[in-house]
């Protein structure tokens, strides 16, 4: 190097910096390698590289990679679900596409109501449990442990599985659907809310404690005002997710549009499937739009 003389402190820094750089480069390389191994192992296990036999147009058989072999069949399926619409006869065509619209409208309302009820229960349960489930707020480690495990179980079991269990115990109908989605929602929201709780500033809570406040008062006055915007935002997001869930949960008999999906699939009524998809897509889009407006209002981005 040049004759630039560096002070011992700077030289020590240079050495430490080189060591830190080398260490972070090694970590990066190892992580990348690990992820690549995982990727190839999982794609192998999921038959991503499977070679399958296809029949060519001249009748001979050939070996092909499963992805290009399957894509035409996907197109075929989608084509079957397309309704026949023409400009000249649009009204009648739409009428025959959405031929069961009366039933579907009723079921759509049921679907939204299931989602709404489930969200209400989920918010109340998740909100109450999110405080004992937050590491910084839990009164003791046992309560923390138990609430966390409960929330984990509630959200790890998919709502479709909860629905199966509840249909078995409470019979076919929307009640089972509400309970299933609500339970899953408590688990999911409880986790999200508790993470919001863990990021709060603890100093206001200290101030309330020093004024003689109880644990509940510290939470109510110190924590809740801090996490409220997050809670509103997560809740609206969850409502959208719950509408999607409740639109499929009828598949196992738990009420809502899902039962029509099942009928359409099993009777191979392909155009019904696309009609139902359009209905759900439009609903979710509307709710998405509405909740975004609401959310922005709450966090103060919207026009007043």
């Amino acid at each position, binding site marked *: 190097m040049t004759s630039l003389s560096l002070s011992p402190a700077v030289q020590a820094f240079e050495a430490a910096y080189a060591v830190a750089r080398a260490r972070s480069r090694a970590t990066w390389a190892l992580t990348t390698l690990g992820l690549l191994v995982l990727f190839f192992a999982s794609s192998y296990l999921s038959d991503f590289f499977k070679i399958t036999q296809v029949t060519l147009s001249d009748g001979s058989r050939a070996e092909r990679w499963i992805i290009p072999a399957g894509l035409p069949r996907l197109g075929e399926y989608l084509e079957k679900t397309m309704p026949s619409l023409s400009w000249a006869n649009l009204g009648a065509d739409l009428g025959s596409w959405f031929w069961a619209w009366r039933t579907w409208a009723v079921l759509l309302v049921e679907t939204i109501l299931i989602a709404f009820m489930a969200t209400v229960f989920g918010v109340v349960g998740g909100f109450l449990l999110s405080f004992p489930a937050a590491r910084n707020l839990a009164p003791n480690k046992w309560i923390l442990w138990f609430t966390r495990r409960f929330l984990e179980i509630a959200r790890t079991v998919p709502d479709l599985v909860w629905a199966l269990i509840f249909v078995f115990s409470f019979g076919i109908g929307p009640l089972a659907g509400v309970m299933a989605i609500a339970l899953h929602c408590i688990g999911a929201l409880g986790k999200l809310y508790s993470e919001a709780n863990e990021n709060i500033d603890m100093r206001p809570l200290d*101030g309330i404690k020093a*004024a*003689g406040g109880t644990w*509940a*008062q510290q939470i109510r006055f110190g924590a809740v005002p801090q996490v409220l915007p997050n809670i509103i935002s997560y809740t609206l997001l969850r409502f959208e997710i719950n509408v999607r869930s409740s639109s499929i949960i009828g598949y196992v008999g738990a009420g809502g549009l899902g039962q029509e999906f099942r009928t359409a699939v099993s009777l191979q009524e392909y155009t019904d499937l696309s009609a139902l998809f359009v209905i759900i897509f439009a609903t979710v889009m509307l709710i998405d739009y509405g909740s975004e407006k609401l959310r922005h209002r709450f966090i103060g981005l919207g026009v007043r």
Partner: protein
Amino acid sequence: MTQRQASRPRYCSVKIPADNFHPDDTALLQARPSIEFMENYTLSLSGLGRSFGSTRAVDNVSLDIPSGQFVGVIGRSGAGKSTLLRLINRLIEPTTGKISFGDRDITALKGRDLRNWRRDCAMIFQQFNLVDRLDVLTNVLVGRLADHGFVSSMAMRFTDAERTIAIRALDRLDLAPFALQRAGTLSGGQQQRVAIARALVQNPRIMLADEPIASLDPGNATRVMEALRSINREDGLTVLVNLHTLDTAREYCHRIVAMRDGRVMFDGSALQLTDDVVRDIYGSDGLAEFNEAVTSTAARVRVPA
């Protein structure tokens, strides 16, 4: 307990028509009795200690603080000043020793009694510890929470009498016009005065102030110290304040306690705090001259006492 409460000083001097309030509320609003009626309880710390792992943050501290004294605790960062104050209101539990107030053993308090003790020795903090997203009035009303049940506090409901007390406390600190603003929108000095108002509505007997002026500019620092002085003089409250600035300590405190490595190194008046003692406390590592003015945050213009 009830007898004691009846004789506690009140901070409202204006009478409110009694028929508007619940009987408990009118008791709250009665005029403040003069200082002579205050019981002369002494706050005693004996052999008080707290360790964090192998560090002794507070080590065998014994102090007797008579009612109405203005005590400054000085010492360099990490000397255990903050821990000492938090031991007194039991935000931190002591590992050894005993705290007593009059003949009450503070170290043994639990549950409701402990919360009532915390109400009786209000604390203000360096970072104010207000709830930024709540309005100023509600932040002050937090000082009333110790006397609230579960339901009314979860609903954030306070009586008209309590709101009156809170707004008066704010007015006393010239903050009434800001009552409905979010606390987070105020300046540091204003926030600290909101914190003092919150402490006042607790009707405390002792005021603990944990470096109340360390994050304030000189003007605001002076206003906050003057507020503490007026609370001490007019309401007869014992004030225990941690300070980084020696000249502030000399200016305001009857008594100065200096700590180093968790121990009390000096306990006396401002006059007794000589340069040699100061050098000993701060251990001015190699700094030839220790200049008090450098650490000062007090405004040069002194408000005549």
